[in-house]
């Protein structure tokens, strides 16, 4: 945070600059910042928005160059945050609002907090598939033979998270991926491409983050989301404060705001499942309580991510 | 290879570069095209080569129509060689490669083995005296050397029709003389038809079987060198090729009475009827006799306006009442700018004698 004067030490009205780095879609990030600024009009928030991978690379490069510019960070998954935590780049902050968030979505050392729930589920082309599947296993069956798309863990952090979680679940393990591979899965770079592929009818099944499907479906795309009965891996778009944040107070206020009921309602309005307990999910999506969440230990996921990717690469490599 | 041009016209936009050109060239003939700058010589060659299409008329080679308004047989199918006025050397090939190129591609050039090609290249390099330069690139050659490469490239494949556009203009007199001989030897040897553009009438007179004199896009006269030189049918040819001064006056049969000194009489048996019809008497610069003003002899009065030393001769430009004339004398005359002189001819007054008797040996 190079941005000079931090005048707002007093808890009342905050001011100064705040650098917010995020991988949220543009419009979402803008709404969030607008709402925040209504409360703290003197804080000048700049948004940097890009893919999770790009955001993290940028922060890493900034670190390499000697001065991390980001104050608050909000990106896709916990494992990413875990890596920053391991590199001692995060600030611990005991937010009052964190109490209302399920404990498994809050870091033990209060370095990052989940902000919403985004599950990865099945997407199905409704023009070609009438008989909606119920299980992940459809991907290993005849129906999906050479007829499914999934994002590559090598390129997408969220996909890598899913890979880690699913392979650590006894019901799936690496067998599941081996079967998918044998069944002729197509790998794409990211979630967007999966949705496009299924919507365009290039394949009928896909593995994809839920909210973009709900959105497309609402607009009329011939797709729908299916939550398999075994449960779904969930990423939480955590938020955290960078260690060298120059405008700590404004950053903390920002985190509080995101986790507050007001902030969560905003997420719902945009179309996400809120993480705060006791709130409703938007149309077409399940709430966190309704979902069976497939989980794994974040620390372990972090440690073995490169290994997982390597194994995946070998499996799917020629 | 015989060539025939019928009623050829060529326009660039509205500019008529060639008008109604009729010309037949026999197989093996050596034709020189002579004419002032911009008269259409290059354009004519380019039509023959097939780079341009005529806007009127047709061109046949060996009785076969190769070019008219609509169609044009491409150059490589015409069995020709060409020396370009501006050389057109390839900047990426060295001297040797320039000569080898047509040997490899010319489709009428009998298939040669590699060693034959090599031999031919050496031969041609010898002819143009560039052996020492065979690995040089064009950029590293002098103007004359470039021109010789252009010449070498054209003659290497011994084409049946050789088009040459001022191929010796950048050479010194010595080398030019040698190249002339080489071209003549080549002509004798290969029986190629040669069409040779030059601005140098010495070259044309010396080398050609026939000369085509052009002016402003039209053919003025076609004939053997002797015909062109001694029997010009137009004032243009008389003055351009023979460098003749055209004296105005009156003809009485074979006797001419110059307008500027009616007392004089010139014998004019050898003068063409076209000249007589125009009341002109052509006098070549070296035919004048120059008398100093104090010589008290009769002649046409004139004033020296320019003196050019030429070694064995001195060239004067003189201003007479009828215009500017050129007079050549031997090196021992000694007039200066502004001198008043009188001009006569050797044969004046001697009406009964022949205009000039053939002499076996010159007594200069």
């Amino acid at each position, binding site marked *: 945070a190079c941005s000079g004067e931090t005048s707002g030490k007093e808890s009342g009205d905050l001011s100064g600059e705040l650098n917010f780095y995020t991988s949220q879609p543009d419009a979402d990030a803008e709404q969030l910042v607008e709402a925040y600024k209504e409360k703290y009009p003197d804080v000048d928030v700049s948004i940097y928005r890009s893919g999770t991978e790009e955001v993290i690379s940028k922060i890493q490069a900034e670190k390499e160059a000697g001065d991390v510019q980001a104050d608050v960070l909000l990106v896709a998954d916990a494992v990413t945050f875990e890596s920053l935590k391991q590199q001692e780049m995060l600030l611990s902050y005991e937010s009052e609002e964190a109490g209302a968030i399920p404990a498994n979505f809050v870091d033990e050392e209060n370095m990052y907090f989940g902000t919403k729930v985004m599950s990865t589920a099945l997407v199905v082309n409704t023009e070609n598939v009438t008989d909606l599947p119920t299980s992940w296993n459809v991907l290993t069956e005849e129906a999906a033979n050479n007829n499914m798309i999934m994002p590559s863990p090598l*390129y997408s952090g969220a996909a890598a998270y899913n890979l880690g979680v699913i392979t650590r679940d006894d019901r799936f393990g690496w067998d599941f991926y081996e079967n998918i591979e044998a069944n002729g899965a197509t790998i794409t770079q990211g979630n967007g491409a999966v949705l496009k592929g299924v919507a365009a009818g290039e394949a009928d099944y896909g593995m994809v983050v839920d909210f973009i499907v709900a959105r497309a479906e609402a607009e009329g795309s011939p797709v729908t989301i299916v939550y398999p009965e075994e449960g779904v891996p969930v990423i939480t778009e955590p938020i955290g404060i960078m260690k060298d944040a120059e405008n700590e107070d404004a950053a903390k206020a920002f985190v509080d705001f995101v986790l507050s009921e007001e902030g969560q309602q905003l997420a719902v309005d945009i179309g996400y499942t809120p993480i705060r307990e006791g709130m409703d999910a938007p149309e077409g999506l399940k709430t966190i309580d309704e979902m069976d969440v497939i989980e794994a230990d974040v620390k372990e996921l972090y440690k073995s991510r490169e290994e997982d990717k390597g194994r995946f690469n070998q499996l799917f490599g020629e | 290879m015989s060539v025939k041009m019928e009623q050829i016209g060529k326009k660039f936009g509205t500019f008529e570069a060639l008008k109604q050109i009729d010309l037949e060239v026999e197989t093996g003939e050596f034709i020189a095209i002579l004419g002032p700058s911009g008269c259409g010589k290059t354009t004519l060659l380019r039509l023959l080569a097939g780079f341009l299409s005529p806007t009127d008329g047709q061109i046949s080679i060996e009785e076969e129509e190769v070019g008219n308004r609509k169609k044009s047989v491409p150059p*490589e199918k015409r069995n020709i060689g060409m020396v370009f006025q501006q050389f057109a050397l390839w900047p990426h090939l060295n001297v040797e490669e320039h000569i080898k*190129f047509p040997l490899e591609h010319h489709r009428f050039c009998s298939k040669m083995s590699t060693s034959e090609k090599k031999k031919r290249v050496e031969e041609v390099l010898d002819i143009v005296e560039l052996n020492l330069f065979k690995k040089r690139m064009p950029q590293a050659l002098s103007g004359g050397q470039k021109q010789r490469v252009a010449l070498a490239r054209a003659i290497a494949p011994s084409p049946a029709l050789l088009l040459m556009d001022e191929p010796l203009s950048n050479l010194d007199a010595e080398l030019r003389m040698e190249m002339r001989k080489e071209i003549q030897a080549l002509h004798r040897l290969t029986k190629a038809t040669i069409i040779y553009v030059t601005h140098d009438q010495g070259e044309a007179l010396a080398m050609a079987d026939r000369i085509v004199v052009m002016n402003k896009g039209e053919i003025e006269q076609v004939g053997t060198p002797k015909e062109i030189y001694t029997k010009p049918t137009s004032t243009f040819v008389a003055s351009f090729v023979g460098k003749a001064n055209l004296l105005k006056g009156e003809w009485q049969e074979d006797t001419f009475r110059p307008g500027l000194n009616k007392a004089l009489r010139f014998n004019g048996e050898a003068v063409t009827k076209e000249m007589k019809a125009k009341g002109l008497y052509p006098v070549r610069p070296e035919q004048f006799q120059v008398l100093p003003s104090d010589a008290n002899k009769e002649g046409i009065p004139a004033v020296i306006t320019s003196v050019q030393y030429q070694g064995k001769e001195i060239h004067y430009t003189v201003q007479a009442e009828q215009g500017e004339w050129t007079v050549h004398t031997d090196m021992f005359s000694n007039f200066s700018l502004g001198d008043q002189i009188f001009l006569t001819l050797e044969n004046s007054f001697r009406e009964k004698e022949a205009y000039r008797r053939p002499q076996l040996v010159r007594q200069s």
Partner: protein
Amino acid sequence: MNTTQPNKRIMPTRALSSMFHSKKLGKILALVAILIIFLVPIYRLVLLSFQQDGQLSLANYTNLLMDPKTWDVLYNTVIMVLGSTLIAVTLGVTLAFLVAYTDIRAKKLMQIFFVLPFIIPSYISTLAWTQFLGANGLYGKMVSALPFSLEPINLYSMAGIIFVLGFSHYPLVYLLSVGVLRKIPRELEQASRVSGASAFNTFKKVTLPLALPGIASGGFLAFLANLDNFGIPAFLGIPAQISVLSTYIYQQVVGFGPTAFERAATLSVLLGVVALLGIFIQWLLLKKSKRIETTVEDKKPRFLLGKKRIWIEVFLWSFFLLSSVVPFVSMGMTSLVSAYGLDFTLENITLKNYQYIFETSAKSERAIFNSLKLAGITTLIGIVLGTAFAYYRVRRPNKTNQFQELAISMPYALPGTVMALSMIFAWMEPIPGFNPGIYGSILILFIAYFTRFFILQVRGSITAVMQVDITMEEAAQVSGSNGYSKWRKILLPLLLPGILSGAFLVFLTALTELTVSSLLWSSNAETIGVVIFSFEQAGYSTYSTAFSSVIIGLIVVGMLLLYFIETYWKRKVGKA
């Protein structure tokens, strides 16, 4: 005589020697500037590749080079780059030849279609191609109508990557060659024809070698573009599990762990080595190329195609249909449906995507404005400096400027992501401990664009300068003109077509740049690329295609306008 007038003799000598010094100073300054702008980012990258745990070490290299995967990737990369460059050069030269030398019609109009593949974002053209060739695509339908069966073409393969890359980057070759071809004096070709060489042999032995400056420059740029391209090998290579350097580097960058960056840096250095290969090939070719007599562009056809003309035209327009129109139309169609994946039927057609872009998003306008500003300034500065450098490089070739050219090429060869990260390394604290605020403002984008695209201008200008014979300048100098007036009246008019094609490339690439901007933009300084990228990432394909359509539509309209203005102007001047 020499000793009698010491004063008179010393004066000019002194003036001269001081001039000599100031020239030297200028040279040093230029060298330093190039060091800073082009080399510092790369220097940081190289440094990083030699670091492990903050220590200087070769470990990154030994690890990488011992990993068979690296060799796989290198192998793939070389195959991909060579293959696609070959296609790009073949296509580019063929089309340039047809336009420059034959009497096909509507050449001016074609120009627009020539550049489309280059400016349509690669994710769109890739998609269009896959759809076209896919099972339900037009190709499939056409093929099934045939009496015999034809294998559907699988684009998700090395061949597919090579094909799409080649088809996307041939405009680079086309643009840099077409002017050069036109400037080859007709007589040089005629000399070959009278020497008996057929039209084809003439092309091979005379035209091609003489067009080398353009072809090598264009080929070289296509080479680099193929090397650094991420979108196409990602889209087509990921499903086929083909990694090439650009995608592999990305994998490393997004990987975790302390060595991720270092590995990425090391791979980038390897990629730099591959780029060097291209540079050397280019130098070799250019060394062979020779300066020709200077002419102006000769636009009169040299080959009359006669009856074949109509067939060649049919072929050409079908080609445009495939390479330009299909992607463009497919993009347009996507942008018009209300939701992605819906059939393009009347009830699904809507303008709401466009409406969204123009009404709800002030950003779009801002982005267009920003991109125009960035591209415009980059282009203008590029024209001046690029032409100055090109002149110096061609007229006084030496080791220094050879090295400078190499440095200038590198940023274009690196994948956008790496390049952007290097820019952060270099410009956040250009002097350690001092952050001038360049990074974080729109300035960084400008510097990045300049750094990355300068080579496009340099190559365009070098090509142009190589076509101007030194005697043109000598004639100006004996006429008393040097410096400003020589440039304005003699050099610039002769160089203009070449300079403009370089500038055109810089402008268009900068206008639609995506990867670098997506890492370096800052609040309120979003560019066209950033907006497209974020729509795309959020899954709003309909918005992103609508926005892309608007941009490309604007470019096409701009070009059409230029075309009409030019014809109008010519007609007017022609009459006068």
